[in-house]
């Protein structure tokens, strides 16, 4: 490697370290048709291949892990006797190296197979941690492996290991780890798994944080219930925040964003600096925020959504909305330099220096 290239690589490494967890990365690959939004998919134990009692809790825990960490409208898994889908404890798995195997038949069913404890594979003897009272080094955490298989059922593929992204960003590695390597017992989807689930299934709710593996552009708009009021009258300012319509991911484009911090700012027309008026309140409409103000003077208003550090959204600023405030004295109302009578007739132009 040449010296400049080495320096560039070193600089990149530093930047990656500085950026840390909040930096956008590569969402886990995925393919194939998706389940319906929040589709309930139940599984049973496979007849003749029922997992032993020491394994069942880990399998059910993995289903719960998938449900609580998906952060998207991906499938919801749960045990139910008589279900079409099944989980089996069986050596009937293609190849003699795999410890887990999943087949999905979206949108109808899936199967997951876990190789039996002690089975001799090409690479050695399979050890499930849960089989032991004291988990030995080199054992596979059945909860992680089953969660990984549920990830495949959700349509996730394997991460591209050549990208060298942090191991904990995903549980969908092509070579799942054993105890006690980093990530050997992850019990929730990694942030880049969640990113892909959100891309494919949309976020669970408008308030659900977007994965920091993403960097979605946002759009913020602001409107006023009236652009011209008399001093002391109330005007409602309403902001709408959503993922930009030009976002790369079709299902996320235009998605409303609720529960975020949207700040209202104002300035005197022509001024360069803005003053924060306060945080806008959430409304019952997804992505909508509102504030009622009673300005005594004419102001320009704008809403600000600052890039959050805890989720994968970019910041945005609304366009400027001017609310003109007129002051009435003896039946003549002035707004800026224009004054009107109560009857709506233009009265006179205010002279310079007269207070507005």
């Amino acid at each position: 490697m040449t010296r400049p290239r080495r320096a560039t690589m070193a600089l990149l490494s530093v930047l990656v370290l500085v950026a840390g967890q909040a930096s956008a990365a590569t969402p886990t690959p995925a393919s194939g048709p998706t389940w319906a939004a929040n589709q309930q998919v139940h599984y049973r134990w496979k007849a003749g291949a029922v997992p032993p009692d020491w394994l069942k809790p880990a399998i059910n825990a993995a289903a719960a892990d998938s449900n609580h960490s998906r952060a998207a409208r991906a499938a919801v898994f749960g045990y139910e006797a008589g279900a079409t889908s099944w989980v089996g404890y069986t050596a009937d798995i293609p190849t003699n190296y795999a410890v887990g195997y999943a087949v999905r038949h979206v949108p109808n069913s899936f199967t997951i197979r876990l190789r039996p404890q002690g089975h001799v594979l090409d690479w050695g003897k399979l050890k499930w941690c849960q089989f032991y009272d004291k988990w030995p080094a080199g054992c596979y955490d059945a909860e992680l492996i089953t969660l990984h298989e549920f990830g495949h059922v959700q349509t996730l593929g394997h991460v591209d290991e050549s990208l060298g992204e942090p191991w904990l960003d995903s549980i969908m590695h092509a070579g799942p780890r054993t105890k006690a390597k980093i990530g050997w017992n992850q019990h929730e989807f990694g942030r880049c798994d969640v990113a892909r689930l959100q891309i494919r299934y949309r976020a669970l709710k408008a308030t659900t944080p977007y994965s920091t593996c993403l960097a979605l552009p946002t759009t913020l708009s602001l409107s006023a219930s009236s652009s011209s009021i008399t001093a002391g009258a109330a005007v409602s300012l309403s902001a709408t925040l959503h993922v930009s319509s030009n976002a790369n991911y079709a299902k996320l484009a235009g998605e409303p964003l609720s529960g975020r911090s949207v700040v209202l700012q104002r300035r005197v027309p022509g001024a360069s600096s803005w003053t924060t008026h306060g945080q806008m309140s959430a409304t019952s409409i997804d992505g909508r925020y509102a504030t009622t103000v009673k300005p005594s003077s004419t102001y320009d208003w704008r809403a600000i959504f600052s890039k959050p550090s805890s989720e994968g959204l970019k910041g945005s600023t609304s366009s400027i909305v001017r609310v003109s405030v007129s002051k009435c004295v003896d039946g003549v109302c002035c707004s800026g330099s224009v004054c009107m009578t109560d009857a709506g007739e233009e009265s006179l132009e205010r002279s310079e220096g007269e207070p507005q």
Partner: protein
Amino acid sequence: MKRRSLLLGLLMAVAGCVPVGQGPTSPPLPSSAPTPPARASQGAMSPEPMVTARPRRSPAPTPTTQPTSSEPMPPLAQLRLPDGTLQPAALGSYVYGGAAADGPWLPARVLPAVEVDAGASLVLSVPPLRFVRWGARYADARDEAADIISPLAAGGDNVASMESAVLPAPPSGPWVMMVQLYFADEAGDAAYYWHVVVP
């Protein structure tokens, strides 16, 4: 409780019984799966009784790519060496046709060794499929746990598909080389392994 199960399993194995769920014949496939082919090739895959299992240390590499069911499997990748020889890979973890298999980094002892000259160019392909991205990494062949894995080369842009790619041989030494491929048309991904010895 677990020890009791262990003892029970041992007794069953000694008596020639097979624990429930590990019968010598495979359980039926889901109704939506195609009819399985003849099971002649599955003899080597019959599950072994749980407690009698012992790690195999056979010096002869065991192929890891024999299918045991009719579920879809990706084709084998191959390397074309400078002398024109085609060296098939051992298949590792994959996602293909709605099926996904997951296993560890494969150790050198289960992989056929191939000697490659230092600085050689290797041509990767996975006929008849095309792929849109690939990445090669390697680890010391003596490091079975693959604690240290180094990047070798990568290519593709996820869009334009290719039927082959050229990658460099690793530096001198015995290595396990793993190449991950992402198939065109979102057909899935697969990890392929070779035991590469570079003098």
